[in-house]
């Protein structure tokens, strides 16, 4: 089936070339980082994680979001999603590849990454994250590829896949839970120390992942002869609507706990992000933009009139994707590190090379995603023809 990825039209090749150029630029910048060290980023002694880890966290969510088409189809026998499960699985593959790459480029000594396997440490959440992410990648490749191949050959997929499909559903939840545990179990980091961090991550994941999937479906319908289906898109939109509402609700729960209890350790980070602290407030406009975008997303997806209009729905999905990205991909990590454990404010601002490298990783992910979607769509077209 792999050959389907290299049989495409001019537009397809143009898009792939465009992505390859961004990957190449990112890679060159990464070579510079390998040579100089992580000092070319905006990271510091106080903000020791930044843009890479934030994007990693967000993308774990997008990967887990794929389960929102798999679960209704396989567990609830919601037949309509049969058409799009493969897209969910392939989206998960591309996202996990980005996640793993973001972790790798964040390491100070990337050549030593296999020390994680050589000295397996069960008490380290990072070890478990390594296991669940790679496991999820493996599961989705195995399931997605075999089911699609079976579909192409007009037969039922292998029996042994069924248990793996069932396992992949809680596994999707696990990847984002374990990723939240990276943060929420750390003493002295008040912003992250909340039991609803994992649920919060999952809610934003189930909004961002399916939102991206809807956008992909709309694009696929436009550029190919395969229509993912109006009903499918509308069902996904309802999932997005619920998830984004829950996400904002969870955030408001955090705000209540921090401010009603009035404990400075918990309030200061939220204050820093939303109103600024001691004259520092680089993230203030971003965080308010995120809130406005998510609220707008709620209005557009909850209201049936706007949700049923696919043009408006596309806008809503972009808005929700951006809103959740700022919330998690920008504020979540920087906010947790500012103020520092010594209550000093050393603002973290990503550097240009850092953003360039991150864009390169995104482009690589989209490259993989486009190729995989191309394969899936070509198979669907073949069957129809």
């Amino acid at each position: 089936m792999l050959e389907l990825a290299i049989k495409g039209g001019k537009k397809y090749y143009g898009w792939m070339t465009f992505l390859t150029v961004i990957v190449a630029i990112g890679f060159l910048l990464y070579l510079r980082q390998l040579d100089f060290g992580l000092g070319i980023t905006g990271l510091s002694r106080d903000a020791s994680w930044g843009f890479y880890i934030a994007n990693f966290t967000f993308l774990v969510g997008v990967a887990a979001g794929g389960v929102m088409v798999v679960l209704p189809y396989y567990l609830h026998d919601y037949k309509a999603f049969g058409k799009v499960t493969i897209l969910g699985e392939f989206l998960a593959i591309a996202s996990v590849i980005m996640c793993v790459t973001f972790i790798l480029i964040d390491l100070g000594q990337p050549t030593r990454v296999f020390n994680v396997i050589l000295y397996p440490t069960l008490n380290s959440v990072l070890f478990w994250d390594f296991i669940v992410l790679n496991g999820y990648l493996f599961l989705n490749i195995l399931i997605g590829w075999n089911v699609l191949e079976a579909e192409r050959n007009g037969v039922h997929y292998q029996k042994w896949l069924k248990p793996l499909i069932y396992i992949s559903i809680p596994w999707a939840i696990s990847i984002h839970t374990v990723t939240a545990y990276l943060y929420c179990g750390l003493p002295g980091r008040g912003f992250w120390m909340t039991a609803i961090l994992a649920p919060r991550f999952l809610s934003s994941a189930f909004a961002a992942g399916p939102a991206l999937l809807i956008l992909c479906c709309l694009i696929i319908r436009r550029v190919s002869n395969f229509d993912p289906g109006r009903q499918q898109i509308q069902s996904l939109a309802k999932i997005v609507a619920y998830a984004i509402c829950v996400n904002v609700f969870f955030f408001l729960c955090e705000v209540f706990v921090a401010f009603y209890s009035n404990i400075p350790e918990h309030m200061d980070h939220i204050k820093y992000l939303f109103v600024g602290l001691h004259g520092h407030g680089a993230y203030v406009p971003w965080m308010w933009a995120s809130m406005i975008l998510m609220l707008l997303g709620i209005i557009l997806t909850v209201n049936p009139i706007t949700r049923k209009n696919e043009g408006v729905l596309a806008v809503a999905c972009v808005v929700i994707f951006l809103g959740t990205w700022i919330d998690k991909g920008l504020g979540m990590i920087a906010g947790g590190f500012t103020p520092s454990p010594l209550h000093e404010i050393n603002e973290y601002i990503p550097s240009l090379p850092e953003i360039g490298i991150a864009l390169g990783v995104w482009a690589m992910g989209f490259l993989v995603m486009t190729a995989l979607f191309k394969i899936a769509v070509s198979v669907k077209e073949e069957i129809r023809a």
Partner: protein
Amino acid sequence: MDSSRRRILQLLGVSALALTTRPVFNAFAKEAQAAGAEAAFKAGEKALQAKQWAMVIDTRKFHSEAELEPLVEACHKIHNVPKLQNKNHEIKWIWGTHYHNAFPNKAARFLAESVEHRPFLVLCNHCENPPCVRVCPTQATWKRDTDGIVFMDFHRCIGCRFCMAACPFGARSFNYRDPRPFIKETNKKFPTRMKGVVEKCNFCAERLAVGQLPACVEASDGALAFGDLYDPESEVRKLIKTNYTIRRKQTLGTEPSVYYIV
């Protein structure tokens, strides 16, 4: 045709896997041997020993940041700690700060003037329940069970910086660039670090091993005391018994081993 080609590819894949797993098993085998060899390690005759090393800092004896300077210098010099201009890349093992930074949750609005203006020495607390050790995915940072020192293995550290996020005391530094050009005078008896690894205070384990007290203690003119927390006769225990001491962020349950007399 298609299926036979696939079969060959599958066979190739399996044999490649078989070939690559062997070195991995060998590596594991070597690792097991190395662990066995470690047991033969013996402490020197002069080595100072303790169940849990601890430090007591008499903050009343320091009046200005300048008085801390010789202690910080002594440590940074023998441990090849570089002086970097860019604040983001800064590396420090021990440094002076204000009361409200050292003890953010104990900072009252109104404070004795002497305390407010006094510098507080901060360093790794060599906690009894170190969160940094708990999170490290490669055991590159670990707590030595013979004397409680929290160590860093610069050669195993992958530079993920999880320990920096886990430390509630900001005690750890990361080499954001090659530190070697920024070391004025290299002490050949202590390793320099490479870029991309984390480092921090080691309670001068290399000095304790040859019967010397930590460099900062030696340079402190009696303001710092060092000894075994579990020996009731040790100097630190005597000081703790006769003075009211506080520790940083005690409520987090990490059990810091550095005590402050205020």
